[in-house]
Structure formats: C-alpha cells, structure tokens
C-alpha cells in the first residue's frame, strides 16, 4: 500500500504541506476562501530541530494503537488506510494520547482528525505530496 513518507534531507520547512492539506480537506474550491483569516487544522505538521525540518503525518501503521485505543470505535482500517469516522468521534483525544508519532490532533470542531491520504476528498491523492516544492514528501510503496 502507498503511504506518505518524508525525506528530511529535502524538507525545507516551508510549511506549504500544512496549507495544502488544510485546503484539500476544506471542501472548498478556492484556497483563499478556504484559508484566509482562519486558524488552520492541517493533518500534517512540520517539526523543526537543529536546522532539520520534516513533515509528520499519519504513518498508517500496520498495527495502529489509535485503532485499538479509540473509546468510540470510531477509528478503523480500510484497505490499509486508517480512518476516523467523524460522526462517531466524541473528541476524547485518546488517539492523541497514544499515537507515538503525534500525528493525530483535534480538528476545528473538537473531533480528532488525521491524514487519510486525501483519498476521500476531491484531491484524490495526498495534497501535501502534490504541493511539496522539493519532492521531500512522497507517496509510494515501501
């Protein structure tokens, strides 16, 4: 299964992935309308340390702790993709408590959200990858 991977050597820390992610998941067709003047809740985030930057998003673990830990049974694996059923999530953030990658976070309405590979939104494949100016984020089989 294809996953999103980041190569620290090429990540520039430009944060474009965060904005592309927030836009892709906004459901709107205009980026300005989607993001201008708003707090964004991207499902990928840039971490920075000692001049090294890298983007972190859901690893779609084979044996995910979030799925096992979700108190609402809202997280499941569908064809390898770990998905959160927003309608079931009550926002307890137990998934945030257990995700060893820090890849799950509360969304604007309090429900947990994370990268679902843009498979369900209009982007069709990860927007962070498409928009990465230095090919630091890739979507591939490994």
């Amino acid at each position, binding site marked *: 299964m294809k996953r999103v991977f980041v190569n620290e050597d*090429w990540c520039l*820390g*430009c944060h*474009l992935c965060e*904005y592309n992610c927030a836009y892709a998941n906004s459901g709107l067709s205009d980026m*300005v309308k989607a993001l*201008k003047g708003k707090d964004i809740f991207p499902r990928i985030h840039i971490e920075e340390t000692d001049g090294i930057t890298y983007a972190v998003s859901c690893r779609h673990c084979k044996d995910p702790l979030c799925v096992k830990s979700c108190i609402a049974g809202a997280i499941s694996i569908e064809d390898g993709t770990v998905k959160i059923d927003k309608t079931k999530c009550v926002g307890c953030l137990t998934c945030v408590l257990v995700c060893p990658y820090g890849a799950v976070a509360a969304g604007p309405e309090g429900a947990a959200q994370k990268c679902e590979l843009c498979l369900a939104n209009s982007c069709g494949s990860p927007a962070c990858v498409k928009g990465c100016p230095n*090919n630091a984020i890739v979507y591939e089989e490994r």
Partner: protein
Amino acid sequence: MKDHFIYPEFEVVRNDNRCIQCRVCERQCANEVHSFDPERGIMLSDETKCVNCQRCVSLCPTRALKIVKSDCRLRENANWADDTIKEIYKQANSGGVLLSSMGNPKPLPVYWDKILINASQVTNPPIDPLREPMETKVFLGKKPEKIKRNEDGELVTETTPQLELSMPVMFSAMSYGSISYNAHASLARAATELGICYNTGEGGLHEDFYIYGPNTVVQVASGRFGVHKDYLEAAAAVEIKMGQGAKPGIGGHLPGAKIVGDVSKTRMIPEGSDAISPAPHHDIYSIEDLRQLVYSLKEATEYKKPVIVKVAAVHNIAAIASGIARSGADIIAIDGFRGGTGAAPTRIRDNVGIPIELALASVDQRLRDEGIRNNVSLVVGGSVRSAADVVKAVALGADAVYVATAALLAMGCHLCRTCQSGKCNWGIATQRPELVKRLNPDMGSRRLVNLMDAWRHEIKELMGGMGINSIESLRGNRLMLRGVGLTDKELEILGISHAGE
C-alpha cells in the same frame, strides 16, 4: 553602508485579498524581505533587500505575490540611463569595483537571433525523425587526416582519445564552491543519464562524484585547485581553462568565507583561505608553454584522455585557436562574451570579449583555411539558449556546445544575477546548508534530463527539416543558414548569405 541615493529597484506587490499569511514567502527568502507583523496581523516587505529571484512568487500558494520593477525613475536622460547613474552612486558609496553575476545582460546583438535555418521543400525530401533514424551522437577529439590501412590491408581504426557524447551538448564548467553540492550532483547525474558530460570547473571533484567520472570533464585552471592524479584519472577528459567568456583576462576569487568544509577539502586548500585563481597561468606565456601543459596532462593520463583548452572569445580568437590547434590539444572550447559567471567585475563582464557566433565562424574558417580543422574539435559556449542555437552553432562549425545558464535555469535559477551574494534562494549558487537543500538532485537531474531530451527532439526535427539525418553532416554546413538584418561584414565573418540570397 546603506545608499540613500538609490531607490529600491523592485517592488513587492502583495495582493491582500489573496494573501493567507501562510508566511511561506518569509521562510523562503534568504534576503529577509518578508516579515510578519503580529500586532497588525499583516505581512510586511522590505524591498531594499529584494533581488527579484522570484522564490516567494513561485512558492506563494495563492499567487498573492508579484515582484515588479519599480517605476520610480530618475529624470529621463537618453545619455545617462538609470542603471548608469545608480552604478555611479554605488561606487561613490563603496569605492569598490562593481560585481555582477551570470552573463552580460546588455542589449548587444544576439547573432543567433539574426540567423535562420533552412528546410527542404520539393526538390529534396525532409526526413521525419519519428519514422527514420537520426544520429545526434558526436565524438570530440582529433580526427585522422586520411584513411590508413595496415600491412594486411585492414583498416586502422585506432584514433587518439575521443569524447563520446549522445548529443552535441555538454554542461559547461561550474565549480563546486560557486555552485552547490546538490547542483553538482544534479549535473553529474543528468550527464550520466544523458550520455553527455558535465564539467567540474576549477573547484575540484567532490569524492562523492568520482562515480560519475566517465561523464565528467575535469578542469585544470590557473589556481590548480583540486588537481591531483586521481582527479585526472577519474575524468573522461581534462580541460585547461585559459579564460572565461564572462571575464576574459582576469582570474577568479572565491572568498575565504565560502572555503568551508567539503569545498576546502575538494579544492585542497585550507578552510577560510581565499581561493585566488590568477589571471594568467604563471607557467604559460606562449603556445609552446601551453603545449607543455597539454602534454604534461596527457602524460599523467597515459594519453587516454582528450585534453580540452578553453579560452574566452576575444578579438584575435582565430589566431589564438590556430595556435591551440597546434599545441596538441584535442578540443578547443571557446566561451563567448555572454557566458555566465558566479561573480565578475561588472565592467569586465559587460565590456570585454566578443560574441561567440562571430568567434566560432572565424575560428572554424581559419582552421579550415590552415588545413588543421581536423586537428581539433570545436566546442562553443556563452549563451546557447535553445535547440535552435545548438543547430546554428553546429552549422557554423561547432562540434558541440557548452551550456550552463540553460542548465541552471532548468534547475530553478531565475536569473536574478546575484550569485555573488551566496544567498541563492534556489539552492544553486550557495553553500549555506539550509539553502543548498532547496535543490533536490532527484528533481534537478530530472529537469536537466527533460530539458536535454526536449532539445534532442528539437534538434532532430530541425535536422530532419533540412533533410539531414546525422549531426556530423550538419557540422560547418553554413549553406543551411541565412542572415537577416546583418551587414555585409557580419555576413562575411559568419560565412553565410543573407536571407533571400
């Protein structure tokens, strides 16, 4: 010191209706033009620092930015142009020699654009390159004068060493130091994939790139930086650099600040020491001296590698080339006055040297006249911008061309011409690690390969149109060219007829 006389050259125009304050522009500008004012919640820009490299423009996800030339002008004066006056201000302020980068930007004639290419109609058939084989491969080096046979009557096919290229293009010399590790990696990988060569310039060969040796031309220049046995042996060919089109007659100077880490190691000079390439080779004052270096290098490489002598196109280039052709060199590379540089004195860059088109035509003619054209191959550079320029150069007599600016553009260069600052936002002309990483060699090499693939297709199309199926048949075929808007003298030097003739 800040010069209060000079108004910023560019304006940063931000469309506030579009700006989403993602601050990508701020993070990506090494010149620190953009900043965010948290109190007012707006993006600010300090255009005094802007070099118009377009990095922010390119990365702005909402296309909220553009950089425009400021229309704040000095009072119009046909004699005293704005730039001329501002250069006076700069020098009055600093007392220094003005420095510039990349090629001569002045509106001097571009002969490529005044030469048109022929095509076959009716009486001779064009060739469709999609249906029929087209050969773009070239071999650079001395060619035998006549066919030789051994005692048994068999053909003698041994030649002096040749440089084989899949198409008549090479990436010209750019040193590791003037450009980044990743730029070098991109060039080396692309050259290898394409079956052509790239050139180390005078910065030595980084140990990581020895694996690309079969597609590497190594340079021996006046500073002799990074030259040692393994370096010479790794290469496909060795180039003696006598001059450079952007700055004929002067040497080079890479400041000590850039001689750090691997650059220092690769150049074989101590960290922090200035890398000064003298204007002359101190052991070369004549063609005879040059011959000694040519043969020293041939000895060192056991006569297995062709030796290139690179000179800038200057006034008496034909005579110089004639001398070089007799020095034992296998290939002469000539660099025209529009060739690029990482840094050169502005006055030199903009006023010294001659156009490569004229230099090429006169050299090719002179060598033919003297019957020594087959002694050497000719490679020309200095602003070869497209496949059409390549075809025109070959028809004027070149065996191959050197391209560098086009290669830099493919890797992301936006020709802001401030390489000398070392703050290249595109990760090319810089050694700052956070900037160097902006050029991912996977992308850089891919784009270079794409560009050359495209050129190869175009060269084939143009050749096919002329009814020529091999690049060798085009070389020196000036009948395929016509001039437009050129004087009789120019046409005479170029050795071509005027359009309509």
